Each structure stands twice: as C-alpha cells, then as structure tokens.
C-alpha cells in the first residue's frame, strides 16, 4: 500500500519536471541570418532581413532567401513589426551579419546595437558591416543568387579579413572599444560594384570616433593601419603593388607586387613639454610575387627596390596617419597608452582631446626589406 502511494507520488512529480515555459520550437520560428538597417526620410529605422526558405524536396532542397523590410522607431520595435509581417515567430539569435547604413553609423552606432547587447540570446559573434549605399539595395541586389544572403556577406568579410584589409571583429569585440575613451575602432565598409546593385565589395574601412563614424580608409590605407595597430595575424596574406618611379629601365612596366611576409611594429609615446609625440617603427619583410625585370639576386637591384618600395609605403603611411588624425579616430590607442603609462589625459574633455590628437606629431618610420623572391631570381 505504502509503496504504491509512493509510486503514484513519484509519477505525479514527473509531471512537474518538464519546464515548458521557455521552450522554443524550431519549427515555429523563422530564423533570420542577416539584417540590414537603414534610415527612412522620416527619421525612422528601416530593417531588411533575409529569411531562408527551402524549396523543393527534402533531398534536392534548395535554399533561397526571402527578403522582408519594415520601419520602426527603435530596433526592437522593428523586430516586432517584422514579426507581424512574416508568418512565423522571428528569431534573431542566429544573425550572422548586420549591415548598417553609413548615415546611421555617422549618427550613433551604439543606439542601433543597444538592443543586441541587452538581449541574453543575442548573437554577439556576428559581424557588423557599414554600407555605402542603403543596406536594402545591397540585399535586393543579390536576390538572384541561390546561396544564403548571410553567407555571401560573411564570406565577403572573411576574405577581406584574410587579406588584412579589415580587422577581425564582431559585435562583442567592438563594445569595449566603443565605450573606451582611450581607443577607437574601425569596421568593414562595403558598397555595391555598380549603381544598379549586384555584387558588393569591400571598399575599405569605416573609422569611428567613440560611437560615431567619422571617416574612412581605402583598402591599402586600412592594411597599413592594421599593421601599425599590430592586429594582423601571421596567416593573413597581405599583397600590395607599388608603382616604381621611372628610372630609365624601359624593360620594366613600372610595377612590383609583393606579399608582406612578416612585420614588426612598435609604438613609442614621448612626452614633450606638456604634450606628447608618437613614434612608430614599422618594419616590413617582403616576398616579391611579381617583378618582370628579374635580377633579384643582385644586391644593387634589391637595395634599390627596397628603397623605392619604402618611399612609396612611407607616403601611403603618412597619408593614413593624417587621415586618422583628421577624423579624430584614435585607432592605435594613443590615448590609452598615455593614460596607462603616463597617467595623464584622463579627465580631458572629448573635444580637447580630439584637438590635441589632431595636432599631435605622429611619425612613422617605415623600413622595408625584401627577403624572398619566389623560386626564380
């Protein structure tokens, strides 16, 4: 008797062990993988999302993406509105890439991202891209492709990451830097190849000052900035081309293409009479990939090439640094360095710092050395 009562109670308890409140069934939800955010003329946000749909049979099922867009006053309201547009329950926890239109980034990026940081299920590992055109048009431009739209953008960024054009960042990585007074960050900038949409390409990086976009760098400038920040991984393939000055060697068509095999960079902050100077040493080791005039085993040729490439890169670097200073984007964390090692600049107002940063003497000393030249001389 007693045993059967116990058994009954146990079975009864079993009913309570299933916590059914927070279940989320996969067949009820529409997972979105990519989201683009624009601004309408009325000042509202406009979101475009791609929802993958599988068509055809189970085996030969092809994935295509449907594109939806709505407007709203906040990002979260947008999601509610989108939810009403799409049949299923919208789930954004699998977003892999977020496209933000440049005009919005110039206003304030944090406003857009706040809802992502606040949500425990938010996809913090997703990529953020800044778009030159409206994000919606970039989405529309690639509808013909059978592949997932998110895959397309992620691949685009990842290949740019391997080329060291853009930094390897995600939603979470940029947050500490965005809120940090001592350093700024940059994000991939993409635009479409032709005005009629179609393919997109990475055109450089968007520079941020605090939470606002304040300028942009071209691909080559961005590579230099990444090298100076010492965030380039060893496996990245950095390939650049230099236009050699005409020096009467008619056999050359005037270009050399090389890969940066290794590099060393060092930042030095020198306090000088109440202000600071920044000194950078950038040492690049090159592997020549293409140089039709050959003769790369001759000491003189190599020495001359070293010098020519060095001059070219020096100009590029100086331009990059100048752009950074003009936009007020402290990509290298010069202010953080001063704060950390000189215990200064803590309480300086943002405007005052921007001014002193723009006027700061930042000297980069580029040194170039060709160390390899492929399997022929």
């Amino acid at each position, binding site marked *: 008797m007693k045993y059967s009562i116990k058994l009954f109670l146990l079975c009864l308890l079993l009913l309570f062990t299933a916590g059914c409140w927070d279940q989320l069934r996969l067949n009820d939800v529409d997972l979105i993988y990519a989201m683009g955010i624009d601004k309408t003329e009325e000042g509202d946000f406009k979101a475009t999302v791609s929802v993958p749909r599988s068509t055809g049979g189970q085996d030969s099922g092809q994935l295509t993406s449907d594109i939806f867009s709505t407007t709203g006053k906040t990002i979260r309201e947008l999601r509610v509105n989108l939810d009403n547009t799409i049949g299923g329950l919208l789930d954004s926890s699998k977003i892999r890439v977020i496209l933000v239109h440049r005009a919005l980034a110039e206003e304030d990026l944090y406003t857009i991202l706040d809802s992502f940081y606040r949500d425990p299920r938010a996809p913090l590992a997703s990529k953020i891209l800044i778009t030159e055109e409206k994000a919606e048009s970039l989405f529309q431009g690639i509808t013909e492709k059978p592949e997932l739209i998110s895959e397309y953008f992620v691949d685009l960024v990842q290949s740019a990451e391997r080329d060291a054009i853009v930094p390897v960042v*995600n939603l979470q990585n940029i947050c500490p830097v965005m809120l940090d007074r001592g350093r700024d960050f940059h994000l991939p900038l993409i635009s479409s190849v032709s005005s009629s949409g179609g393919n997109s390409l990475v055109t450089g990086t968007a520079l941020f000052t605090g939470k606002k976009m304040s300028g942009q760098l071209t691909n080559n400038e961005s590579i230099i900035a990444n090298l100076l920040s010492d965030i380039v991984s060893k496996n990245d393939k950095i390939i650049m081309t230099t236009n050699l000055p005409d020096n009467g060697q008619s056999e050359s068509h005037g270009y050399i293409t090389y890969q940066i095999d290794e590099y060393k960079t060092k930042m030095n902050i020198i306090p000088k009479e109440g202000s600071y100077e920044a000194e950078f040493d950038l040492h690049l080791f090159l592997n020549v990939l293409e140089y039709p005039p050959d003769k790369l085993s001759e000491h003189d040729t190599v020495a001359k090439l070293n010098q020519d490439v060095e001059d070219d890169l020096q100009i590029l670097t100086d331009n990059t640094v100048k752009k950074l200073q003009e936009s007020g984007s402290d990509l290298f964390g010069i202010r953080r360095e001063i704060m950390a090692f000189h215990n200064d600049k803590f309480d300086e107002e943002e405007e005052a710092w921007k001014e002193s940063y723009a006027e700061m003497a930042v000297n980069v000393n580029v040194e170039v050395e060709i160390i390899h030249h492929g399997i022929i001389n």
Partner: protein
Amino acid sequence: MIQENKQSISPRQFMIFILQTQIGAGFISLPFSVHTSERSSDGWITVLLIGIIIQILITLYSLLVKRFPSLTFFEIMTAVFGKFMGKAISAAYILFFLLIAGQILLVYCSVLEVWVFPQTPNWVIVSSMSLVALYLVKEKLQIISRYHTVICYVLIILPVLSLPAYANVEFRYLLPVGGSGVYTILSKIPDGFLSFIGFEVMLFLYPFVKGTNKQKYLAATYSNIFYTGYTTYFSLLTYIFFSPEELMLVPQPVLYILKAFTFPVFERVDILFLSTWTVLISSSLVSYAYLTSLGIKQTFGLRHHKTAAPFVLALCTLIALYPRNDLTVEKFLGQVTNLSLAFTIAVPALVFLFVLLFKKQKVST
C-alpha cells in the same frame, strides 16, 4: 553536549565546506561590485585586500573558538553572556543566516530569469532549488560535507571555459595600477565583501572538526587563499576583457564574457557556465540553510535539526520571491551587505574582547 563522535568531519572536509560556502551567488558579479572607476580597473586590488581582511578575521575566529573547543558559536554565546542575552544573539544570527540563504536564492533566481528562463515563473525556479536543497539540509554534517567535496571538480570547469577570452584582451586597462586612487579602492571593500561571505561557518563548525587547532586554522587559511586566488583570476580576466567604461554597464561580467564565443558544439557557453554555477549555488544554499537549522536546534532545544529544515527553506523561498524589481533587489543586497559586516566582523570582535577582558574560558563542556 554535542554528539561529537556522531558528527565529525575531517580538516579537509572542513576546508572544502568553507570554500563551497564562499563560492556562491556573488561570485559572477564580484568584478562588477568592486569595479573602481572609469580611469583604470583596480578592482582586483580590492579583491586581494578583502582576502587579507578575511585572513585576519579567520585568525581572530580561531583565537576565539580555541577557548571553547567543544562549543559552537551559538553555545558560546550562551556560555559567555548567559542564557537570555546568548539566546537573543543566537536568534539574531539565525535570522542573518536565513537572510543570506534567501539572498542566495534571490540572486540565483534573478540571474536565471534574465539569462535563460524569461518565461518561467519565479516560484518554479526558486522552489525547485529549495526542494533539492532540502534533501541535503536535513542530512548529517558528514553527508553535506561529502556533497561539497564531490562537486569540487566543478571548480575546474569554470577557468577552462574562460580560456577563449584571451583571444581578445587589452592589458592596458589595468594600467596605471592604482590609478583610481587609494580611497576609491578601499571604499569598494564593503561592496565586494558579500561575495566573500561564508568563512564564518568556521565559528559554527569548529567543534565538529576532528583535528588539532593548527590543522583547523590551516584548513580555513587554505580555503581563503584558494577562493581569493580564484576570484582574483576572474576579476583580472574581466578587467582586461572589458574596458573600464563598459564594465559599468555589465552587472554579471563573468557570464557576459562567455556570451561572445561560440563553438561548433556549444553555441552558448554562458549556459554551460550557468549550469555549473547552479551547482555551486546549491552548495552555498545548503550550507546556510544547514547553519540556520542547526542554530534553531541548539537555541531552542530541538532534538534534531531535521525538524527545522523544511521551515527554514520555506522561509528562504518566501524571502527570494518577495522583491519584484531590480532596484529593490539592489537595496536588499545593500542591506544584507551591511548586516554581513556586522555579523562577521563587529559581533565576533566584540565577543572576543569581552572574553579577553573577563577571562572567560573553557566554561562547562
């Protein structure tokens, strides 16, 4: 007076008991609680300082309880202050432990609600934990200690999960060391203190431990060293991962760090961490609920603490369900912090002085 032979634990179990009581609810937000300023992240210095303060307290405690080798703190009260005063102070301690146990449940519930179960009613989260805890609380001290020992392996998982964070750290956030100023660093000590609470179980378990005074003192010391090291590690990691400004926005930084990574198999590492953390919470809850029941038994002359255990956990559950918004929770935690300073520092210190002055020693055993 006490069933010494029936209820005794080894010094090693004693050490683990203290440690498991310490590692509890406050652990995942400690770096946030002691975060100093937006200048530089000096909270880890505060954590180390708290560790030193606790070492001093442990020394004080062991000097005090050495004089009454077979009495728990509840009984010492009666022996020193007489029946009425002693019982009053014991009752205050019982209430304090009840509050701490309630606070553990409260933090557990609010973190779980925000991070994983937004739809699940609070009473389900809280009462399921209480029910599980009840199984252990009604048992003997040895059995609770064995549970604490078994779950020690869980402690290894957390640092391992934190390793991927090193892909993205900035050591300069720690510099200049002490940049927030000595005053700020010191002023954060009370805020972090609540996360360290648990070492005071020493006062109450001392007579149950087999071993010399030195062994017991060392056990408490090792536990303190381990816990201080453990929390300093997580504080440092937090401070190099988040910039000082961002940390102001993140109340559970240790969890938030894990949210940024995904692995092919584990999509959300923070949930893996939370389930590990739940085990650690259960051990603290069990310890405090046990102490409360023990106190009720000894103060009010019950035959077994088992009788009190269900009521104790029911009260904890009610305490945990009472506050409805985050601000009330904050206020409640602030008050518990103040109480904990009183009950772990002020009262034992006064008792110690009293004992020294009046040369009370080894009263009836």
